[in-house]
């Protein structure tokens, strides 16, 4: 029954997306806006089908319906409730179902949000593109990656249970869905990018209208990546949180492009520049999510995430090829229409900084992609295996990271159009001194190593520069009577908080990787040893046996507190012994314990691996700051009313009837009457930033 229900749901969604594409396509081809609008209902049907299929799958899991091959492979009677529920996305076919469900949700949200412009061909094209993507994923589920395939032969009495690594930590309930909310969310801006290219209406504010969607997806992707890193730290038994694993890289690549896009679109909004960059970045972001899905699922590169033994690899690769060819082809076709009037006058300006920012992020993505794909290239040409591991990525990305930190410091202080060194000097002297003093303090404190010192110094510089912006903004808001909190919300200020989070993460990464140390102690029960300045006391062994997990735990006291229980565990019926770590965290450092060797005889010594890494908790704190900043950035700021505002911003107050929120950027679709192209702007370079009081400009500068 579950299989039938599930198949019904999948087929309904597939049919709805295909028919929706056909109907909207017909409406567009025949220039019948009403038909195009009728296509919206199909988005809703796709969601209905996805929900039905999801309910069927969860029902099958909860009732341990082993007639479904997926349930038999990923669930067992002894699996705890939480891991039964999360079993839906613990393996390939179910995770595609999750993708389809989230995509359907986004489509419905998009259709609802733009319901007043549904007859606009551009919105119709965007809906069509999203339905094409939905048709692909539900097509995968209808065929090669069928989650509701029944077992061939007799129904087994008990299932295998989920992968042992996925049963240890509750984060499995959060990481995949949040990550998918990020990945799938980029479909919407991509759809609008394609739509505006196809219709040729590139000068309007559509990319800006979808900027909040991109921010939303970006925020979730960021949280997903940070959670994934925390999860691997807690579970995988090595004191690391980022290994430049091919699948980690696959999630990082879209993040890099999306971050570049979120910055670069500000230039387009302000001055109408960098349009080709922005369209390319959006298309690249979405393409990379598909490429990442391919790399994860095709078994081409082995990885901790690899769901191998699947046939969908070639299909995903083909879809990636289609997406990329379509996107790049459209840009080539419309290329000359994208030229903007005006240009970047000087590198030492906000626009110049954003352009360099784009280049740096693209370089970052290029290095990560090259390192990930190079083993395949090498094997194809030389026939031998080579590993491109953390040493390569760390070496290549350190200079890029340092350059980005530097840009993060000077960027917010740079005015638009152009500036003088006098202005920059005035704004950045104090932050520069703070950065230098941070280095001096570290060196005096005994820190050695050029790389980490550079990160700390630039981090101090960046933190001081961004904090300065926040202080100025808060002060300006306070003076103008809007309240101090006003100076802390809004796009620019949220961005400053995000930058502070990045600085904290950079500092934590530099400390943990450069000054982390792994040691081993072999202790009899009741004995004490010292490792890297921490007192390790082994109390004794205990044995745990539950249906879900049986383990031998070593009870350990670290610096007198605990007990911590690193263990060697087996889950369910699976006899594979997996090491489960225990961590003693503090603001200063983390002591990470693993059981490296159990005693051979009763009462014998146990070997405990002790990894001490400084400032690891700062990583998670920095992640929280990132999320906080994203939330702050989503709050609408004050509207622009000044006559010297760029023409691409709508006059505020006209759109309150059609559902667009008041915002500090040109959000909300611009109706035909309001639409105006990129006229030569009459804006003179304004000193200071958008949302707070203009900064004093040194006399004598233009």
């Amino acid at each position, binding site marked *: 029954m579950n299989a039938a229900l599930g198949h019904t749901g999948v087929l309904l969604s597939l049919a709805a997306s295909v028919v929706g594409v056909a109907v909207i396509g017909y409406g567009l081809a025949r220039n019948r806006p009403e038909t195009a609008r009728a296509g919206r209902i199909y988005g809703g049907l796709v969601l209905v089908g996805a929900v039905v299929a999801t309910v069927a799958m969860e029902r099958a899991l909860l009732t341990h319906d082993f007639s479904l091959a997926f349930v038999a492979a990923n669930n067992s009677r002894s699996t705890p409730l939480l891991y039964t529920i999360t079993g839906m996305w613990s393996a390939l076919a179910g995770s595609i179902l999750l993708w389809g469900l989230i995509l359907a949700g986004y489509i419905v949200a998009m259709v609802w949000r733009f319901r007043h412009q549904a007859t606009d061909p551009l919105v119709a094209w965007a809906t069509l593109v999203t339905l094409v993507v939905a048709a692909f994923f539900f097509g995968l589920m209808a065929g090669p990656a069928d989650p509701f395939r029944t077992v061939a032969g007799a129904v087994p009495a008990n299932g295998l249970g989920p992968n042992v690594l996925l049963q240890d930590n509750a984060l499995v309930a959060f990481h995949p869905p949040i990550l998918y909310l990020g990945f799938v969310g980029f479909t919407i801006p991509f759809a609008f990018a394609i739509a505006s290219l196809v219709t*040729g*209406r590139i*000068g309007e504010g559509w990319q800006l209208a979808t900027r909040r969607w991109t921010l939303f997806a970006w925020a979730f992707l960021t949280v997903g990546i940070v959670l994934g890193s925390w999860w691997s730290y807690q579970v995988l038994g090595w004191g690391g949180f980022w290994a430049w694993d091919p699948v980690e890289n696959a999630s990082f690549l879209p993040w890099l492009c999306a971050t570049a896009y979120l910055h670069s679109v500000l230039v387009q909004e302000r001055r109408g520049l960098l349009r*080709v960059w922005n369209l390319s970045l959006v298309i690249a972001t979405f393409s990379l999510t598909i490429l990442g899905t*391919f790399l994860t699922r*095709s*078994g*081409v590169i*082995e990885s901790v995430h*690899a769901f*191998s*033994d699947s046939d969908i*690899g*070639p299909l995903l*690769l083909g879809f*990636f*090829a289609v997406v*990329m*060819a379509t996107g*790049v*082809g459209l*840009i*080539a076709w419309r*290329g*000359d*229409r*994208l*030229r903007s009037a005006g240009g970047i006058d000087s590198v030492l300006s906000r626009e110049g900084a954003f352009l360099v920012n784009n280049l740096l992020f693209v370089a970052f993505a290029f290095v990560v992609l090259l390192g990930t*794909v190079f083993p*395949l*290239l090498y*094997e*194809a040409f030389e*026939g*031998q295996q080579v590993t491109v591991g953390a040493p390569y990525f760390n070496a290549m990305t350190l200079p890029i990271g340092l350059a980005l930190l530097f840009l993060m410091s000077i960027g917010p202080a740079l005015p638009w159009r152009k500036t003088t060194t006098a202005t920059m000097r005035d704004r950045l002297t104090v932050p520069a001194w703070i950065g230098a003093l941070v280095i001096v303090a570290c060196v005096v404190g005994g820190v050695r190593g050029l790389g980490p010192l550079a990160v700390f110094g630039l981090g101090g510089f960046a933190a001081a520069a961004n904090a300065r912006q926040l202080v100025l903004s808060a002060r300006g808001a306070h003076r103008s009577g809007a309240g101090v909190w006003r100076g802390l919300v809004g796009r620019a200020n949220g961005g400053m908080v995000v930058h502070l989070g990045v600085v904290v993460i950079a500092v934590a990464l530099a400390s943990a990787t450069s000054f982390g140390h792994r040691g081993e102690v072999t202790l009899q029960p009741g004995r004490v040893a010292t490792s890297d300045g921490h007192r390790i006391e082994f109390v004794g062994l205990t044995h745990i046996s539950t249906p879900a997990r049986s383990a031998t735990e070593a009870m350990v006291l670290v610096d007198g507190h605990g007990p911590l229980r690193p263990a060697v565990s087996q889950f369910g019926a*699976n*006899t*594979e*012994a997996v090491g489960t770590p225990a961590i003693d965290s503090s603001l200063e450092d983390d002591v990470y314990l693993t059981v490296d060797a159990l005693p051979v005889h009763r009462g014998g010594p146990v070997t405990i691996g002790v990894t001490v890494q400084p400032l690891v908790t700062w990583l998670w704190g920095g992640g929280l700051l990132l999320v906080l900043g994203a939330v702050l950035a989503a709050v609408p700021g004050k509207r622009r009313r000044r006559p010297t505002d760029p023409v691409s911003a709508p006059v505020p107050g006209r759109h309150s009837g059609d559902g667009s929120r008041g915002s500090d950027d040109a959000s909300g679709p611009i109706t035909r009457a309001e639409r105006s*192209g990129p006229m030569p702007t009459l804006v003179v370079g304004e000193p200071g930033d958008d949302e707070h009081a203009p900064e004093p400009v040194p006399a004598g500068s233009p």
Partner: protein
Amino acid sequence: MTVTAGEQPPARPGTRRRHTTRWVAGVTLVAGAALVALLATRPQQTATEVDTPLVGQVAPGITGPTLAGGSFDLAAWRGRWVVVNFFASWCPPCQQEQPELVAFAYAHRSPGDAALVGVVFDDAASTAHGFMQSTGASWPAVIDSGGQIALDYGVRGPPETFIVSPGGIVVAHFDGPMTNAALDYWLARAERGGL
């Protein structure tokens, strides 16, 4: 002069119109096509013959206690073809290949014929022993304390299988679950000298 959107502004005198966008797009398309072609032609990770440096070299020694309680020394088995199989009870491909190995061992049970020896990889002796017994495997399985034998043979993860010639040279290395037919095929090729 009213210019509707989409028309290009007339080129200023003295400059060429540069189609930078088209060039970059073209290069990107070519690079993307190359990437897709590369990824499309990669084999998936299945059981294959692996070319590691050990092939063609003298087989490293295998000595140690067996699961059944005796002791084993590979040097004592010089003069016959030996199939060395690294396995673990918890690894699904090992479970998959075990019936095939049992069939192979039975087919070659006459003395002097090709022999099978297992090496336990990262598994408790009791569970490995239980696995061998429950599958009807009767060949010796060596306990690899400290993982030294696996290191000497360059084993990354079970199941991995090596074919050792009567002269003690490693002639083939396989990664992934083997079948009876595949073993016979490779053994025949090795005996003919084709490896």
